[in-house]
């Protein structure tokens, strides 16, 4: 059966349910959110239809600028940490035995799917005073006495890297599996050490992949909404946390919606950039 354009109206039948569901429960909610972002907030958590830019104007405050700056900085730091560890790791993984690869992939998928609540809980336990890693340091004689390592920037950063690392590996994996092995073999034959071959042949060949991965992980990290809350201080809150906070606890839906619209625009711009990088890769 060849692919053919739909001939009769009934040929469109199968599309009806998926298209209807996606339109009604994704496009319409999205449009609702955009509409609400222009609404006027009332006292007591309600809002009335209006067309005001007040919610967007609040972006121009110093507080918001700080949150935005910190969110971007944190996401970039996490993306760089993940990619720097992820590239050599995925490269070595893609060159390992198949059975070993599968074990790692199952483990990475399991951690990736682990709820952010549970990751936050696990790290807060590991960084706690009574059950934490510092007890090990005391036992080893590295520290005088056990102490809590949260809340701190380091804790937020570590847990977010933990959360994004499996994602990074899974994004890099297909590109590295397909990487032509003769490339490194040629370098080795010409006398380069494995490490040198990796940095002079593999990394340059993957330049666009690396850029695209950085952007993907950056967006992923931008979406982290619980870890900064559970492991950090209020000054470590990100845009995602602030949106949740405004929507649920401050009941300021219009402002939350305006921030979400802003976050969408940042993300979309970056997705576009990563697609562009991907196309450059194919063009080569």
């Amino acid at each position: 059966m060849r692919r053919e354009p739909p001939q009769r109206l009934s040929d469109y039948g199968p599309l009806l349910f998926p298209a209807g569901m996606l339109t009604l429960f994704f496009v319409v909610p999205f449009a609702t959110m955009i509409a609400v972002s222009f609404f006027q907030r009332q006292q007591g958590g309600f809002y009335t239809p209006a067309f005001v830019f007040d919610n967007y104007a609040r972006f121009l405050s110093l507080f918001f600028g700080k949150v935005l700056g910190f969110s971007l900085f944190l996401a970039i730091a996490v993306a760089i940490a993940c990619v720097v560890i992820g590239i050599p790791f995925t490269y070595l993984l893609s060159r390992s035995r198949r059975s070993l690869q599968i074990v790692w992939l199952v483990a990475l998928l399991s951690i990736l799917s682990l709820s952010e609540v549970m990751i936050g809980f696990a790290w807060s336990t590991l960084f706690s005073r009574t059950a934490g890693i510092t007890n090990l340091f005391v036992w080893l004689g590295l520290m005088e006495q056990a102490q809590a390592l949260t809340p701190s920037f380091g804790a937020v950063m570590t847990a977010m890297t933990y959360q994004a690392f499996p994602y990074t590996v899974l994004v890099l994996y297909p590109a590295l599996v397909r990487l032509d092995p003769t490339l490194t073999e040629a370098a080795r034959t010409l006398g380069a050490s494995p490490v040198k071959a990796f940095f002079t042949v593999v990394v340059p060949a993957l330049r666009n992949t690396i850029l695209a991965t950085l952007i993907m992980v950056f967006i992923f990290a931008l979406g982290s909404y619980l870890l900064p809350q559970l492991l950090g201080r209020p000054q470590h809150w990100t845009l995602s946390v602030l949106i949740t906070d405004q929507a649920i606890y401050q009941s300021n839906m219009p402002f939350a919606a305006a921030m979400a619209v802003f976050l969408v625009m940042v993300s979309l711009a970056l997705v576009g950039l990563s697609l562009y990088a991907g196309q450059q890769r194919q063009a080569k």
Partner: protein
Amino acid sequence: MTVLRRLFFFAVGLFLALPLIVVAGVSVNQRQTLAFPPQGFSLSWYGQIFTNAEWRNALIASLTLAAASALLALLIALPLAWFLWRRIAPWANIFQLLGVAPFTLPPVITALGLLTFWATTGLYGQPWTAVISHGIFFVTLPLVTLSLGFSAIDRSLVEAAATMGADDRTVFRTVVLPLILPYLVSGYAFAFVLSLNEYIVAYMTVGFTMETLPIKIFNALRYGYTPTMASVTVLFLLVAAVIFGLVARFGDLPKLLGAMAEDK
């Protein structure tokens, strides 16, 4: 080099395993204290998940939500993926894009969109709204695995069936469905596991009327510590590992993942 490689793998493995080891450790503490290494040994905190009414209800809510929403995601993805494979209709790709979007954007955006939508329609808080919300949020996973499954079908097989007089319906039932079944199952499995663990969308849609396990853990975290959080985390990790292990056992996991990222 092999030593260096082993060491590197070990270091990454340790980083990934360390928090989970500590959580597994505190989950078997005898008393309700946060202590590691565990003091005494007890599996009672695992029993708590099933015997304590609050935790059991959260578990049932989570499992029901995951089973139903993964099914809904599959029901949306299957006809769409089939249509895109069977027909030449470039404009229909917009729905493929819509299906992938919720998963690519930061989750808080989809969550807030659905929250404003359910609040505006006055349906906010109904348990079934969470099923629809998760079904839409996770439609990406079966959509991607199914697109991959369809693209792997040898078209000459289908052609042969059609030449012998089979119509679309018969071809689908006798040729296409058996071929894409592994992709159908893995798509469902991915959506199921992720829905089980999902927090923000569930919280924003039904957070005040229904408690799923992640919501329950988050609420419990704010009031202090109970080892049941740890035992639930271990349980969920095992469930995910078993399900993904089965997908790997009966399917081609490297291929599945290779193409998944390709599609993004």
